[in-house]
């Protein structure tokens, strides 16, 4: 028996956080009855239904393996909870190409109080599709943003990953550890888009972290960017965590949220359409620019699924 999507959506709207696990189970399911209920859930939470964008701050956190993301998030989540903000973490790990399975190890590294109802941690596999966050992850972030104050999507990677996360997050933070030159190279070569906040971890390693932050700052200024570069130490005695939280808040405050979210939904719908129908499908629409133009004409408050339906309707017209 499939869960009642509309009821779950209504509970999330009322910020009933206990509805979140079941909502996520539903959104991740590919069974046909569940897909219908998922759509009902998301429809309950679309900007059109809410009358505004979901209020939660969706933050993307990405960086290479070993950069200290889990430990940093452990500290950040603790701070947000101490500030009285509810928080959800969607930790995305890669899936094995060979088996399709995944090992989601973040939970073991993050401290949490099981009695704290205001904190949700959900480990998610990236899935088999190459490139882009899985659609359920985007839908989950959107749904949770209606109920939680902060929603974090954490992914592993350097280079491409943060452009994918930018499709859904209001604010993207890239996390690097001192001594890893990759990020600098990626930025200079234009492989990596410039994030909204850059975080250098392991400040307890001393001058190394400071040097790394200075080098990154210089590289960014040479690219004409003035984004904040922060150094943090996540292990006790932690420092820099409050400053990081403030920098994230500040970025969000300066955003045209409706515009950024509408763009994210259009990008997501296009990515989903491309994954489903391939280049052939895109060409039938007249290419990517034409598809974007079509999306640009739609009501910006439509959710991702509705936007994708518009693309598919056009596809049917062209090929039908």
């Amino acid at each position, binding site marked *: 028996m499939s869960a009642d999507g509309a009821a779950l959506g209504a509970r999330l709207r009322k910020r009933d956080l206990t509805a979140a696990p079941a909502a996520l189970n539903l959104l991740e399911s590919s069974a046909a009855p569940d897909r219908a*209920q998922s759509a009902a859930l998301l429809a309950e939470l679309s900007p059109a239904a809410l009358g505004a964008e979901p209020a939660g701050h969706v933050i993307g956190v990405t960086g290479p393996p070993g950069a200290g993301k889990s430990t940093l998030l452990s500290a950040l989540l603790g701070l947000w909870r101490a500030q009285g903000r509810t928080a959800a973490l969607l930790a995305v790990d890669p899936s094995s190409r060979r088996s399709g399975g995944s*090992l989601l190890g973040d939970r073991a590294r993050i401290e949490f109080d099981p009695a704290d109802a205001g904190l949700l941690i959900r480990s998610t596999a990236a899935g088999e599709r190459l490139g882009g966050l899985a659609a359920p992850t985007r839908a989950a972030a959107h749904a949770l943003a209606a109920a939680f104050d902060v929603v974090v999507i954490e992914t592993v990677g350097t280079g491409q990953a943060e452009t994918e996360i930018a499709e859904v997050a209001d604010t993207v933070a890239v996390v690097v550890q001192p001594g890893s030159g990759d990020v600098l190279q990626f930025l200079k070569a234009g492989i990596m888009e410039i994030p909204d906040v850059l975080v250098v971890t392991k400040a307890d390693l001393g001058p190394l972290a400071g040097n790394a932050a200075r080098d990154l700052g210089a590289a960014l200024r040479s690219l004409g960017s003035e984004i904040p570069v922060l150094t943090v130490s996540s292990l006790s005695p932690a420092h820099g965590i409050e400053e990081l939280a403030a920098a994230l808040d500040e970025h969000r405050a300066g955003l045209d949220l409706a515009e950024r979210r509408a763009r994210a939904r259009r990008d997501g719908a296009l990515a989903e359409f491309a994954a489903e129908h391939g280049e052939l499908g895109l060409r039938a629409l007249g290419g990517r620019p034409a598809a974007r133009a079509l999306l640009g004409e739609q009501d910006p408050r439509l959710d991702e699924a509705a936007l994708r339906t518009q693309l598919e309707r056009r596809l049917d017209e062209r090929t039908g």
Partner: protein
Amino acid sequence: MSGDQSPRLPERDLPWMMRTYAGHSTAKASNELYRSNLAKGQTGLSVAFDLPTQTGYDPDDELARGEVGKVGVPISHRGDMAALMDGIPLGEMNTSMTINATAAWLLALYIVVAEEQGVPERDLQGTTQNDIIKEFLARGTYAFPPAPSMRLIADMIAYTVEHVPKWNPINICSYHLQEAGATPVQEIAYAMSDAIAVLDAVNERLRRGDEDDVQRRMEQVFGRISFFVNAGVRFVEEHAKLRAMSILWEEIGRERYGVSDPRHLRFRYGVQVNSLGLTEVQPENNVQRIVLEALAVTLGRDARARAIQLPAWNEALGLPRPWDQQWSLRIQQVLAYETDLLEYPDIFAGSKVMEALVAELLQGARAEMAVVAEHGGAVQAVPYMKAALVESHRERIARIEAGEQVVVGQNRFTETERSPLTADAQGGILIVDPAVEAQQTEEVRRWRAERDQRSVDAALAALAEVARDEHAQENLMTVTIAAARAGATTGEWARALREVFGSYRAPTGVGAAAAPPGAEDLNELREEVARLQEQLGRRPKILVGKPGLDGHSNGAEQIAVRARDSGMDVVYEGIRLTPSQIAASALQEGVHVIGLSILSGSHGELIPAVIEALRKAGVDAPVVVGGIIPEQDVAALRKAGVAAVYTPKDFDISRIMREIVTLVSEAAGATHNGAGNGAATGSSGEADSGPADASVAAA
């Protein structure tokens, strides 16, 4: 060799120190055990502490539930330590303590009790294990993050070299690395890299004071570092490993630390032989395994152990009884007193085979040490080493499953008569009285009520103050001893430091383990998982974790890796979980099955508590349990709601996976669940896990 061409030594060598790793229930019960072991000819003590003591919790802490007095003795304060050592003259005894995160505290209690006996600290002899890096890598009983942990160790070494000069403040452990799957090369390389990290930290500590004679003191420190190694059943190569280690150690001493005194350069080690290879099936075969492993560390005089403790034949079944441990002590005594082993110089001198084996190991170890150094040393390389160990262990299990590595009685020659050794009502193991926990809880509360609270508060405040200053001149050991004297408890000492240092969760190493080449049974399994995914609507998701304080995570890690390789999404939650944490995770993650691994003997208390918490959270997913579970306990676990129980005899992990798939499929079918698993609360799953190894009582 002597001039008259006699192949014998002029005088028979003295035997090594003989110990038995022992302790359980209460300080008083363990004291009686020690006295009777000494009466049987044991020549030193080896104290096994329970998991709450090892991780810094008092018996009345939530995390201590089910673990008090199980794998060792609970020691909460100086009163407990006094009872443990009652009637044992500490000035003459040589005591080895398997204690790491809380080593400074337990040594402080020992010093204070010696004081009460009128024995000055400078006369104390013994060893504290105190090797935190291998806790992060293999054993899991850490308490603080890496940096402050290393600081505690450095302080303790600096203190003992000055005030307790006959004490071995640290035993660099390669033992646990082998238990976690290390190859001989990895065992050598990681242990040596670990020692280098410790020595570098001490060096820095010594330079902090206004010491003109740092070099002289470093020589002394180098001479006080001892090792705790393992020996597996491939005893020829294992012996070569020890010869390679002594060569490397001398080289490191001379080249890296400028040590020249040959006495300080000697590679000194104690040993507990392998538990990983001990089997639950036909457990009597473990006796010959233990004998052969004992030969690995005694055969060649140039690399002979200083101290030996042997595991008992029944460790894969549960906790050994005094009689089982006596049997292991008698193995040592036969070897030392009946055979001619101690009459000769090194019997491998001039052996080409041995020399070549040693050279091969040295070459591999140097290369691997270079990799660790590239990572920035052993502390920084913990994630790298951890992943490498998980990978080696995965390969080992795959070889056993495929029959390429023979384990007699387990994957070959499996026909057997019924063993009379396990025929008694308790199945041939020690059962700790469950009343011990309540009794110890009451005792520690009475202790707190009756002491001078003001001096305890003051001592703990002084401890925290020194801890807060990263560059403190004052040694953490002095304030720790003061707190021990004042009557503070283990939990209070650790809490004071946790508040300053923060707590920590170590890397798990599971993410990086390679998927094996497509074995056929794995392909079939993946198809079954794919069918299950169709049925569920989403990929089957399993939660794997370890409730309680037991940090031996090999089994859980291997189950997690295999579940991923079978095509499942695996939430690996790691070690040291409370029942409510597991329930919250299962709910939030929406898992279909929950796998719990437990090796400390606390399954009787913890597993029902987990199931109760799960059901209370609205999670109805099936639960599977793996670990060292005596056969007579299985029925009770099933009755508490466990769907399946796996023990070391279930070494075929693919079969475990197939059973889990069936279990999830049946559970989903029974509730007609699509993917949603219940609208109100979400869902969760069942569990499984089954360590294919057996290292419980062996530290």
